[in-house]
């Protein structure tokens, strides 16, 4: 069984011997109700993959009803890089009829349908898939007794999945014990009973459903063990590693889990996180922390970000360092709170009134959520500026495995500088980047500084001077331009010249890169550029762009009044290059590789493909 996402994998032929068939990766979709704890099955598989040096990515939907209800958890695991959650499933596990009805279409032809024969009746004579009937409910009941069956079903399922994919049972058992360890013995025992029952079941029934992941050595990697977590967790711990110890926020999906993690963790590090009455109070309190020399974080999702625009403008004017996290969701307004979108970029850059240059970064995957948080803190401190991190709903909630960070190397010491300042100290020197003297620091001149949102002179006192307004506006702009000159060259994949350059930002990195492989595989000369730094841009993009006939910017937002998305707008304005075009969508879901490929196809002309390839490429592009 080979994932359609990786056509190049050598699929072993079916064997009656029961010897496992070798696979590269697999996409399993579990469809049930949120009460069934299918998320935890995904969690176990994810952590197992992590501990087995396999790569993994998960994807889930949150029911729109408050009271729970239909929900899915999709896990893609395998060896080598996993770049997206997979366009379609290789295996679907359906717990209920409604799960089957809603998700059978997501199963690829030739895929395996596993269903709870106690609840589901698949369509008669549908021979597109391998049907596997398992009495999940009764099987669980028999194993653990009627009482806690709903608890058991997910673990039972984990059992037969472990058997089918020849997973490491010792490690799984260990994970289960860790997970339920805290609770009383029975729970652990019940869980193991359910697991064993599920594991035992297939042996006598599906000899021919038996797979094993190809072994690949991860020599290339750090050698440090892998950890698995979602993007919000990674981001929160990135802030901790960066020495950030203070924050303030107000709950909103999908930002809340970051503030909840920080609220729970910070006291251990001697810090604190304040839940405020609203988002305006939150950014204000965070700025108060930063003012005392303790770089602080605030964050939210769209609606909350809109409320922070005035205070954020103050931060630029007063040149106060601050980290602002925006976990993007479907907009506008309350929009689609549990869907993904990348439609807050323009606001991040231009949402405040006046000329307010500020820094905007975006992580490309879960691991990058950790590292971008560290970079954001460094930039905020070095340039005394607010830094926005634009992550999104998809990164926030999905689980990935990545190498444990090299903490001893990374850790930053958070101490504020309260040393006395010299007699010549000025908060807003025209000839240098602002370095605030926090309260508590003696000022040699005896003249204490004022931070302010009014235009000001070098000492922070208000001014109506046209000259000073010009100079201070330039000061605030130039420091961000200086930052631009220090940014690393962006990641460039594939051909360094050709017909097409795919440009991505944020979580479209994975599908974008996978799409590149797909079209390269089809013989199209193309590259892929990913931007983590969205404002300011790194230098040298122009030189890269000129090597491609078309620059296609892929983003999850609207084409707008003039036919391009938000990053595309920024790039077109800066480079006035008509070759920059857009591939956008607004369905609130992450990009499927096939959608990107279809988008590319729309822009291609025969001429783009060598005579030889034209036929195949064109057609297969269109099909794929």
């Amino acid at each position, binding site marked *: 069984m080979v994932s359609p996402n990786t056509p190049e994998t050598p699929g072993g032929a079916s064997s009656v011997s029961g010897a496992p068939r070798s696979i590269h990766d697999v996409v399993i979709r579990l469809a049930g109700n949120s009460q069934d704890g299918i998320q935890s099955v995904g969690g176990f598989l994810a952590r197992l993959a992590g501990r087995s040096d396999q790569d993994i990515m998960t994807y889930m939907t949150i029911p729109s009803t408050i009271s729970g209800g239909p929900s899915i958890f999709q896990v893609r695991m395998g060896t080598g890089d996993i770049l997206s959650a997979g366009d379609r499933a290789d295996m679907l596990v359906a717990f209920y009829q409604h799960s089957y009805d809603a998700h059978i279409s997501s199963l690829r032809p030739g895929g395996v349908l596993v269903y709870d024969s106690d609840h589901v009746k698949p369509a008669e004579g549908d021979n597109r898939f391998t049907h596997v009937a398992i009495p999940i409910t009764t099987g669980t009941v028999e194993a653990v007794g009627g009482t806690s069956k709903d608890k058991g079903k997910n673990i039972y399922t984990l059992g037969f999945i472990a058997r089918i994919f020849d997973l490491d049972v010792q490690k799984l058992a260990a994970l289960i014990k860790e997970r339920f360890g805290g609770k009383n013995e029975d729970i652990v025992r019940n869980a193991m009973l359910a697991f064993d029952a599920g594991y035992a079941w297939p042996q006598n029934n599906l000899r021919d459903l038996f797979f094993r992941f190809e072994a690949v050595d991860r020599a290339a990697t750090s050698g440090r063990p892998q950890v698995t977590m979602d993007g919000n967790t990674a981001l929160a711990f990135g802030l*901790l590693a960066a020495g950030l110890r203070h924050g303030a926020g107000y709950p909103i999906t999908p930002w809340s889990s970051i503030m909840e993690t920080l609220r729970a963790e910070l006291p251990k590090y001697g810090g*604190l996180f304040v839940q405020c009455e609203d988002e305006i109070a939150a950014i204000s309190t965070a700025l*108060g922390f930063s003012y005392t020399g303790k770089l602080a974080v605030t964050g939210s999702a769209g609606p909350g970000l809109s409320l922070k625009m005035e*205070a954020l403008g*103050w931060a630029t004017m007063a040149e106060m360092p601050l980290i602002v996290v925006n976990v993007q969701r479907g907009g506008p307004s309350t929009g689609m709170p549990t869907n993904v979108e990348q439609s807050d970029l323009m606001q991040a850059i231009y949402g405040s009134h006046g000329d307010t240059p500020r820094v905007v970064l975006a992580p490309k995957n879960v691991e990058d959520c950790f590292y971008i948080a560290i970079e954001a803190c460094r930039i905020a401190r070095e340039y005394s500026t607010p830094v926005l991190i634009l992550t999104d709903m998809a990164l926030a909630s999905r689980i990935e495995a990545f190498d444990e960070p090299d903490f001893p190397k990374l850790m930053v010491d958070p101490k504020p500088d309260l040393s006395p300042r010299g007699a010549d100290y000025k908060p807003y020197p025209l000839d240098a980047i602002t370095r605030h003297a926090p*309260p508590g620091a003696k000022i040699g001149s005896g003249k204490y500084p004022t931070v302010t*949102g009014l235009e000001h002179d070098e000492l922070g006192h208000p001014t109506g001077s046209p000259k000073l307004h010009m100079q201070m506006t330039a000061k605030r702009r130039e420091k961000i331009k200086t930052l631009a000159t220090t940014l690393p060259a962006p990641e460039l994949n594939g051909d360094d010249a050709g017909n097409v350059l795919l440009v991505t930002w944020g979580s479209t990195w994975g599908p974008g890169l996978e799409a590149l492989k797909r079209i390269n595989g089809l013989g199209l000369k193309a590259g892929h550029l990913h931007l983590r730094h969205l404002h300011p841009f790194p230098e040298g993009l122009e030189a890269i762009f000129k090597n491609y006939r078309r620059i296609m910017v892929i983003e999850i937002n609207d084409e707008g009044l003039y036919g391009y998305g938000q990053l595309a707008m920024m790039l077109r304005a800066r480079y006035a290059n008509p070759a920059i075009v857009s591939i956008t969508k607004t369905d609130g879901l992450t990009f499927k590789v096939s959608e990107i490929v279809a988008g590319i196809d729309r822009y291609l002309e025969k001429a783009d493909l060598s005579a030889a390839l034209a036929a195949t490429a064109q057609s297969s592009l269109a099909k794929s």
Partner: protein
Amino acid sequence: MSSVATLSAPAPAGTPLTKKILTADHPTWCPGCGDFAVLHSFYRVLEKLQYPHEKIVTFAGIGCSSRFPYFVNTHGGHYIHGRALPFAAGISLGNEDLHVFVFGGDGDGFSIGGNHLVHTARKNVRLTYVIMDNSVYGLTKKQTSPTSPIGFKTKTDPAGAIDQPINPMRTLLNSGATFVARSHATQVNHMIDVMLRAAKHDGFSVVEILSECVEFYEGAFDASIPRKGGTWTLVDEKKHDGTPEDANRHDTSDEVAAFKLAQQAWPGSFGVFYENKARKTKNALEAELVTKAREKTKQATDLALLQATFARMR
């Protein structure tokens, strides 16, 4: 970070803080503005307190009254309209050694800032908040404020204000502030007394000062100025001297009594309405969370903590 809450000791022997040292820009206020007297009184309060110069912070929102920090030579600043309190909460919770003072007007504090007042106060964040109430929007040149009396003619109520104003003292009492007092810009010694007590209070202390806007609301507070035929009534605080007359005096720990003071007819009484010395500050409560957490983790280093956490996520 946050060590357990303590007000730091007076400055070590050395140059004492004087009005001269504390004076910054010349105030841009109109001649005769009540705010001058508040500023003068604040200098005197700082002279009495003798905190280390660098540990005093003066912050404000936006308004004539909120220009205050420019005129006081301490660390400080001028934030956005109505949001100085949550900012100041960050200062207070961010560094325990600081003495945080917030100044602002009735519009800044009761109109756009009204909700921040309530939530900063109920959390009992340690800082002192002084409201200079002139019952009008001064900086924007005479619009109705939440304390403008019905009938007062302004640019936004040319026929006279029609909306019922808030009762500032009742609002402050209800906010959950643990020290609530009222004073008057024409009574310098009284202002100094109550601001001093407010500063020494270990918690969220707030002082409402009637401060006349001579430009846009002349005579607003004459009813409480004796030389203008008004009556100046002080809150008669309990002395706890066991005398019979003491029984009738005001018990500053009695919320209902304070509520009744707030309900008095204009111009009412001046002094300390309410004081709660028992409630813990948020500063202290957060510090306890840290202490408990650090004990649980056996004072592990940040590095050790992070490594242990990630090990659990393998």
